[in-house]
Structure formats: structure tokens, C-alpha cells
């Protein structure tokens, strides 16, 4: 088994899918000979040719719009949007078109496609290379929203997303691209969508997180353990469709819940987790649910380390919820 970084695991997944299935094509800005600005598509054009991995003109609307057309006509496009912050010109294509084709055509036309895009802060990218837009997509029936946090899951979830018959928004935590390494099996395997991963067992406080917040929450959980608070850390992995039963079960195990994400708090995904628990498991709760999130401001550049939740803030919430 090879030890890969998260971005290498993404590359490995793409190579595996392209080798196994000739209908898989990769398109986006600079994904060809350059291999993408983060090198996620490195070597694909060389290995599979310009008909399988190709550069596009600089237009997100065009990338997703043509990707939809390819998906309608028998290909399995994996579109790369260079930074999630640049996806908004394609929002109409994603929300009005890809997400609705199956429904509005009674299943006659479908969009099996994956939209991969790096999201989140931690690289000093300022307002336009740092955002976490998962909530925009989670509010759209017809889409699936997937976020890996380890190399193993990045490959297995991406392969499951490419196999999926519906459009998947695959958000890659760019802060973790080279920060995390792990063992990745060779060849094809999948991690099923809509399944949670228990990162750490614990009876004291349940911490829900995903993407780049997983290592942050693990660090906080270790610090909490030193203070005698054992945390159950859950990596949600797929936000839509969410494993609701798994979330409720994990919440009930401790009765004390902290939800962590980088995205702004207001109407963020943490609100959905909180409401789900409040509606279905309020009688199990020993303390109010705490959210640790980005602020309801644009994403700052110089002070990004204050904006993004860190172990210090997560630990503070864990202690608060535990001591309530």
C-alpha cells in the first residue's frame, strides 16, 4: 500500500477511474499538461491523451455547462473548478440544470458528473481563495455534497462519486492537500457516500466536523482528553444526503454536542445538524448545542488564523458543553 498525500490520492482516484472506464473525462482550467494549479490532474493528459483530460477556456459556466452536456450524452465528466470561490458563474448550471435534469425530465435525462473543487482557508488566499460554500449546494435538492479529510477517503469517496448516477459536488480541503498523508490501497475501492466515519471514540462530548476541520477537532479532542474529557469525533464525509440516523446516534451517545465548520455560522451546515438533533433527540441532550464556525464576515487574509476555528476555540466549546 502506498503512502500518499490527499492531493496524490485524488490524482490516484482519477487515474484509476480513467483506466477502468473509458467514458470518464477530466476537464477544467489548466488541468491538461500543467496538471492543475494544485497538481491534482498531473500526468492525466500524458497517460490518457487530450481526448480524456483537457483544458477549457476560462469560464466556469462553460466548464459545468459543457460537462452537463457530456453527462447527458453518455460521458462521465469530472469537472475541476480551480477554486471553489470561482464556482459562482456556474451556479445557474449547477442549481438550475445539473440538479434538476432528472426531476424535470421524469428520469429521461440525467447528469452523472462530478464537480471537484478545492475549498477552505489556511493558505493565505484571502477573500477569493478561501471560502467554504458547502451550504449553498446543500440547499439544492438533486445534488450530492461530499468532503473528504484523509487520503484514503479522498480516493474512495471520489471513486464512489464518479460511479454515482447523480451530480456530486466534491469539495477538497486544500489546506490538507499536502498536510495529511496516509495509506491508500492500490486499484479501485469505494467509500460509500452518506456514511459517517468515527475518527475517535469517546463518552464525554460528540464533535461533528468535516474536511479541514477534522485534524483541528482531533487536536482539540486530544487536549480535552488530557483534561479528562473523552470526545467522540465524527467526520461527516457526505453532507448531502446526510446519514441522519448516524448523526442522531452519535449525538445520543454523549448528549453533548459541538459542531465545527470553517464556513460562516448563519445558515451554515452546523445549523442543520443542530436542528436535526433538536427535532429528534432533544430529550437526550444534557447541554445546549455549541457551534464553532467561521465568522459571519468575508474571509480575511492577514488574520485568517483568527477567522478559522482552531483547536483553542474548539476545546473551549468542548469544555463549555461538557461543564454545562
Amino acid at each position, binding site marked *: 500500500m502506498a503512502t500518499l498525500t490527499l492531493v496524490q490520492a485524488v490524482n490516484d482516484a482519477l487515474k484509476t477511474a480513467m483506466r477502468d472506464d473509458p467514458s470518464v473525462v477530466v476537464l477544467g482550467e489548466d488541468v491538461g499538461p500543467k496538471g492543475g494549479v494544485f497538481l491534482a490532474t498531473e500526468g492525466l493528459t500524458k497517460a490518457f491523451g487530450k481526448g480524456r483530460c483537457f483544458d477549457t477556456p476560462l*469560464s466556469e459556466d462553460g466548464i459545468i455547462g*459543457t460537462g452537463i452536456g457530456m453527462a447527458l450524452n453518455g460521458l462521465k465528466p469530472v469537472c475541476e473548478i480551480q477554486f471553489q470561490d470561482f464556482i459562482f458563474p456556474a451556479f445557474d448550471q449547477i442549481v438550475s440544470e445539473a440538479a*434538476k435534469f432528472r426531476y424535470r425530465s421524469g428520469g429521461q435525462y440525467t447528469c452523472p458528473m462530478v464537480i471537484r473543487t478545492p475549498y477552505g482557508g489556511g493558505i493565505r488566499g484571502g477573500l477569493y481563495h478561501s471560502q467554504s460554500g458547502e451550504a449553498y449546494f446543500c440547499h439544492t435538492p438533486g445534488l450530492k455534497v461530499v468532503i473528504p479529510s484523509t487520503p484514503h477517503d479522498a480516493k474512495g469517496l471520489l471513486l464512489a462519486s464518479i460511479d454515482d448516477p447523480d451530480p456530486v459536488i466534491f469539495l477538497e480541503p486544500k489546506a490538507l492537500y499536502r498536510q495529511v498523508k496516509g495509506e491508500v490501497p492500490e486499484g479501485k475501492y469505494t467509500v460509500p457516500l452518506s456514511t459517517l466515519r468515527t475518527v475517535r471514540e469517546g463518552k464525554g462530548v460528540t464533535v461533528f466536523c468535516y474536511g479541514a476541520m477534522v485534524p483541528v477537532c482531533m487536536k482539540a479532542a486530544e487536549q480535552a482528553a488530557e483534561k479528562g474529557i473523552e470526545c467522540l469525533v465524527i467526520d461527516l464525509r457526505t453532507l448531502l444526503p446526510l446519514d441522519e440516523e448516524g448523526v442522531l446516534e452519535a449525538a445520543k451517545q454523549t448528549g453533548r454536542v459541538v459542531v465545527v465548520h470553517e464556513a460562516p455560522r448563519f445558515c451554515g451546515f452546523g445549523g442543520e445538524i443542530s436542528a436535526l438533533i433538536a427535532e429528534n433527540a432533544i430529550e437526550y441532550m444534557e447541554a445546549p448545542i455549541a457551534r464553532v464556525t467561521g465568522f459571519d464576515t468575508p474571509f480575511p487574509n492577514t488574520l485568517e488564523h483568527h477567522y478559522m476555528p482552531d483547536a483553542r476555540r474548539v476545546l473551549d466549546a468542548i469544555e463549555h458543553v461538557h461543564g454545562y
Partner: protein
Amino acid sequence: MTSQQLLSVIEPDGSTNGHESGLSKDELLHCYRTMLRVRAFDDTCMKLQRSGRIGFSIPNKGVEACQVGAASALQKTDWIFPSYRDFGMALYHGITPLDMMHNMFGNANDSARGRQMPVHFSFVKPIRFVSISSPIGTHLPQAVGAAYAMKLRGEKHAALVSFGDGGTSSLGFHSGLNFAAVWKAPVVFLCQNNGWAISCPSSEQTASESYAIKAKAYGMPGVRVDGNDVLAMRKAMLDALDHARAGHGPTLIEAVTYRMGGHSTSDDPTRYVPKHEVEEWTKKDPVARFERFLATRKLWTKELGEKLYAEAMEEIGAAAKLAEATAPPPLETIFSDVYATVPQHIRKQGEASFELARRKGDASAGDGKFPL
């Protein structure tokens, strides 16, 4: 021919300039009959809407030649990415008025299961008539992607994408034409310049001297066609399809035509369209023009026209009656087809709504089961 000259075949008196394509008698009459069926479908739907039996329709009067001429050049293996004013293309290729009426009534037999507004058709057979959406211009890059898939697989098929003059201002027009030209995708862009984007005249849509001229900047041929001339439309499409199938890439066709009705049944064009304009274009009626051509070939008489129109009205009227008598879609169709498999959270919402409907006694037969 420059991008400013208007390609035409049929002169106003019905004679031709020698460019007519080799259509047989039967094919010419199929074009004619389809134009009358478009008009009959249109007339029927306007009456159905005005009498409150359907909620909405989109008038097609005046643009029949654009649709039928363009569609006549396509093979069944080609794809149509239509706008909402294009159902003549579907009729030409054998989609039945009954299939269309099921959509107009949004009933259980509608291919879109009553989820869309009327006129937002979706068909896969006998030709790909791709599901229509209301946002403008989104289908242009989609047609390019579908066409590029054909090219990557080495097929000789092509895609036609149709839109109005208003659509040329959209984001999708730019990305669609640009991607298609760079990739040399086998796609034909058909801009039906009918003079109006709801209430905005072309002068408020572009400062270009034409729409066809925009092709030049994208690096593809641009052709301006008399859109009320069914044979000119056919010729322009055949040329563009030959070009596409030969691997030379896309063409932009600007069909100069006129929307003789309102934008939709919710629109009152008398508030903004000058009366003399409608009168002028009425003289250029594409159906009458084709009739004059057919008469020169001894293929048309007034009686034949009346007979074919009456037959079309009868067929479409019967389809409307049948569609109106068909039950609405069952409740579960709200929750199916969002994904290939119904996820847990949607299933729960569905079951809760079925349970409420049963409890209140207002569930209709067939409710409460997911079609899995």
C-alpha cells in the same frame, strides 16, 4: 454571402431562386402539414388557456418556418436542445400532439410527470428533444458538451441548439459559442431573432449590426437567413450540419423572423408592439409564403390547406380531451426522480405527507408508495 445578407429561397410570390433543396413531394407536404399542426396546436392551447383549462402557453405563430425548416435538416440521431418556442421541431420528428398535451395538462402521463410548467417538454424518442428549462441560455454550453461527446466518440452526429435574440445576451451564449469554436464541436447555434425578448426590442438587446456578425469574433461562420422561408432555413441548416459533420465545427445561424403573438399567455403585446409592425409581418406569414411556393408546384390548393388544418385541429382537440381526462400525477412523484434512489430524508418527508393526506382523507389513489 456576408453575414449581413439575408439568405432566402422562396420569393414573396412563391417562385424560387434556384436554391431549393431536393425535397420530394411527400417531404414538402410533411413540412407544410407540420407547420399547420404547429399553428393548430398553438390555436388550441391559446383557447385552452383563455378558457382556464390549462395554466399557460407559449404562442408560436409566425415562427413555424424557422422550426420546421431547421428540424427538416436533422437526422434522428442528432440532438435538439430547444427553447420553449420550438415545439414544431418535435412535431416534425414524430413526437405526437398527445405526448405534448399530456405536458400541457401536467398529468400522470406527462413525460416530466407534471413537474414543469406547460410547454417545457422533454422527449428522448423518436429524437432527442432535450428537457427545456426556463432560465435563458443555459442550454447553449450543454449542447456544446453533448456535441463534443459525439466528436470524442468519433460519431458523425450533431446538436442543434435554439434560442431567441434575448438569449444572445446571456452568459451561456458567450461560453457556448466560445467553447464550441475552440473545440470545433459539431453544433449549430440557431438564433431565432423574432424581434422581441418579452417586451424588449432587438435594439435594446444588442448594438451589433446583426446577430450573425457575432460569429466572426468567435471564429465560426455566421449566416443570416430569412426565417419565414422554410426552404432557406433548411438550406442554412443543411450547410451548417455538413460543416459540423465534416469536423469543421460550429455555425451561428440568425433566422430573421417575427413573433406574431405575445411572449406567453401571461403577456399582452398590444402594450408595447407597434400595430403597423404586426400588420407588416402578417403579410410575410411563413405559412402563406410556403403555400404560394407549393402552389407553383401544383401541390397546394386552398381546399387542401383548409382540410389539413381541420384535420390537425381535430387530432389536437382529441388529444386535449384525452389529456384533460387523465389523472394528475400521484403524490409520490413529488419525491421521486430527485436522485436515482430516494434518500432517507426525502423518503421520510414523503411518508409524512402521505400519512397526513390519508389522515385528512385527501390522498388520491396510488399515493403512498415510492416507485422503486
